[in-house]
Structure formats: C-alpha cells, structure tokens
C-alpha cells in the first residue's frame, strides 16, 4: 500500500514539475502581440481550412477495436505463461499445453479471419 501512495505522490510531483516548467516558460518568455496570421494552423502559406473536429479515416478506429480484442487475448496468456513451468515440473504439462492450444487456435483463427476480411489493408 505504501508504495502505491509513493507512486501517486510521484505522479503528482511529475505533473507539478511539468506545469511549473510550462507556467515558468510562459512567464519568462517575451509576449509580443500575436498577429492573426501567426496564430493560424501551420500550413504552407495558404489559409488553413480545418475545424476543431476534423474528420479522420475510420480505419484508425477499426485498428483500435481490433487491438483491444487481441490485446485482451494476449493478456490472458500472461498468467498461463508464468505458471506453465510449474505445471510441466509437476507432470501436468501436456494438459496445460492442450488447454492453451485451444485458446491459441482461436487466436490464430481470429487473426486469419481478420487478414482475410481485409480489415488490415491500407489503401
């Protein structure tokens, strides 16, 4: 518990450090009048057309959803991975291997389906 509290205080320290620097540099730096052209979004000389809610390709959201699916599957492998050696030593290795084999098979089928359905093609 104590190390968790220490961690929280450390995060607060980091945030305070960052805010101190941001506020400090704004206080130290020169503050000239910012013209309208200077405050425009950086563009190669033309007036930018973007809004605050610019649209993005839906591909990115798809990638994020697929990531969540696969990441959770991978996280399920972690507890299995660290106990696997103990099970092998106690003679239950084949049982654990078979159990995980089914799970990995589902993972592989999912990945193949994902590639087949062209969810990962960028063009």
């Amino acid at each position: 518990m104590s190390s968790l509290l220490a961690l929280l205080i450390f995060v607060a320290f980091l945030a305070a450090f960052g805010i101190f620097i941001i506020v400090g540099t704004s206080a130290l730096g020169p503050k000239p009048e910012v013209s309208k052209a200077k405050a425009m979004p950086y563009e190669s000389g033309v007036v930018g057309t973007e809004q605050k809610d610019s649209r993005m390709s839906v591909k990115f959201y798809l990638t994020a959803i697929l990531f969540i699916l696969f990441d959770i599957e991978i996280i399920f492998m972690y507890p299995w991975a660290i106990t696997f050696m103990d099970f092998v030593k106690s003679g239950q290795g084949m049982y654990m291997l078979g159990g995980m084999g089914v799970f990995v098979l589902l993972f592989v089928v999912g990945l193949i389906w994902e590639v087949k359905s062209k969810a990962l093609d960028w063009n």
Partner: protein
Amino acid sequence: MGKDAFEITLNIVKMILIFLVMVQLVPVLVWAERRVSGFMQNRFGPNRIGPLGLMQLLADAVKFLFKEPFFPAKGVAAMYHAAPVMALIPGALALAAIPLSSAVIVEPFQWLGREFGPYTFLAQGYDFGVGIVMVLGISSLGAYSLLMAGWGSSNKYSLLGAVRASAQMISYELALGLSLVGILMIYGTFSFQEMINQQLGQALHFNALGKEVVISWLPNWGIFYNPLGALIFFCATFAESNRLPFDLPEAEGELVAGFHTEYGGFALLMFYIGEYGHMMVASALVTVFYLGGYTMPFYEITPAYVQQAWFGGMHPNWASLLTGVVFALVMLVKVMLLLWVFIWVRWTLPRFRYDHLMDLGWKTMLPWALFNTILTAAWIAFSWR
C-alpha cells in the same frame, strides 16, 4: 517517523533520483545522436559550445526557457498545454519500476548517538510484484500525450501524425506483448528482480533431447533461450518509441513535424524527454529480459563476489554501497550500448510506408511472436531441465 512514512519517503526520493538521472541523460543522448548523425553523414555536428560540443544542449535548454509562449488560435487550450506534461509521466514511471542495480544492504550502525538499521535499499523506485505488467500498462499511456497534442493543436498535420502514432503504437504493442510470453514462460515470474536473479551467477545450461548441455563460457542470459522473442521485442520497441524506421508520426516529408508541429520552446523539449525516456525504458527492459540486467557477462562475478573480493577490506555498509555503484555502471553500459543501436539504426534503415508498417506489425511480427510462443511452450513441455 513511522515505518510506512519512512518507506514512502524513501520510495519518493528514489523515484525522483531516477527521474533526474533520466532527465540528465536526455541532453547527453541528444548530443550523442547529433554527433553520431554528423559522423555518419560526413559532417561535424554540434562541436562549438564546451568540450566536444557537450554544452550545446544545456545552452539550448536555457534558450528554450526564454522562448515566446505560443498557442494556436483554434487550439483546445487544456489539451494543448497538458500534452507535454503528460509526455513526461509514462517514461519516468516505467523506468522507476526497473531494478537498476543490486540491492544495498545496510547493517545496523550508530550515528550521532542513535541506532539505525538494518535496511535493505532496492535500486528500484517501487515494486508491486507485477513488474512487467505494470510497465507495459504504464508505457501504453504514452499514446495519450501524442493524441492530446494532435487534438489540442487543431492542425491537420498534427492530428494526422497523432492518430497515426497511436494506431502504430497499439499495433506494435500486440507483437511486443506477445513476444514476451515466451521468455515469461522460461522465467515463470513477472518480477524483474526474480528474472535477474535467475540469470545471475551461472553458466548457460539447458536440456536438449534429454541431455544436459552446459556452455561454460556463456552467461545464463535470456537472449540465448529466446533469441526470436528478443529480436521481435527489440524491433517492436522501435515502433513504441516512434523511432526510425518507424517514425511515421513525425515523417517530416509528409506531415511537417507530426504531432508537435505547433509546439516550440520547452514544451517541445518535454516531448523529446518523453521520447528518450521511452527509449531508455525499452533498452532497460531488453537488458533485464534478455541481457541479464545488471549482471556481468563474466558470470562468476556476482554482487556477493564483488563485495567480498573487491571491497572486502571495507566496512560492509560501504562495500555494499560500492558494489551497488559498480553494478549500476554495468547496467548503464548495457543500456547505453542499446541506445547506441537505436541511433545506429536511424541512419541505416529508411522509413517505412504506412501500409507496409501496419502490415509488418500485424501480418509479420504478430504471427512470428505467436510462433515463438508455441515453439517455446513445446520446448518447455517436451524437454526441460
């Protein structure tokens, strides 16, 4: 002072020390990167300020402090200003979770008429016993700072760079996470300290086809057990820290400067601290998992041996402290060599195209990481010491 309060203070002091070391290493790394880039491109790089140009980045940092604060007209103020602060946090937190040296053991002693000790100081900011899971969780938070920067700037290049960066980071995180499953099976623990202890002080030994093989001139390091996993992990960390050849988020030919287009001054430097922090965490993780952590390649030289043979004549407390310093230096050398590889690769490989990048992550590295997992599991199940 209660025991809890003492421990909390100690942990905070250690974490702040680790953070300061990280921040101090950034100018050295930037300097090294620019000098090496100059060397590889047959030019000088920074060489004017201070010996070998070493003071260049300090001068730059002071200059950054006095830069004009800028805020883009259409930007979202809270996100724009919070993003560089957010960039500092994951790298520093993750680095604090990694043991950087052997534990310093202090026997009871008297000072100013009071009794102190015994203490055990781990060279590690905090330890929850979940080690790598914690670090993986924290370092994924890095994507948030990029997204906040891109969204907050309200610039299409920033936004595109940020969205690309987060898509790339999460895609390679799959390969990163899966490549570790093999080595976790071999160690059987999440704790970094346990992993290092298993690599400490013994020669490489394993069972092959029912026979015990001992290679006495190699240390018992993870890379010899799981070279494929090590390769995939190291490659994936390049994408995680947005380094060439995976630096699509800031591909200057297409995106001006990516997510930090609208930033300048110290805020920009904070993104750099975050990026180099990620590289340090990646190098430290590779070191702990595959290169024996702070252990020496000459495996007979363990912390206990060093304390006995090198500093045997001293008071045990000082001997323990000096041993800690020696092994911290070993860790530093290993991390520095890996960081050198980061810089080296930057000028060796060209940048990927975005679709090739995603294909490499999902269709090449993920299946290979899966293959590595299955291979390691089969090997452990059928033939293990």
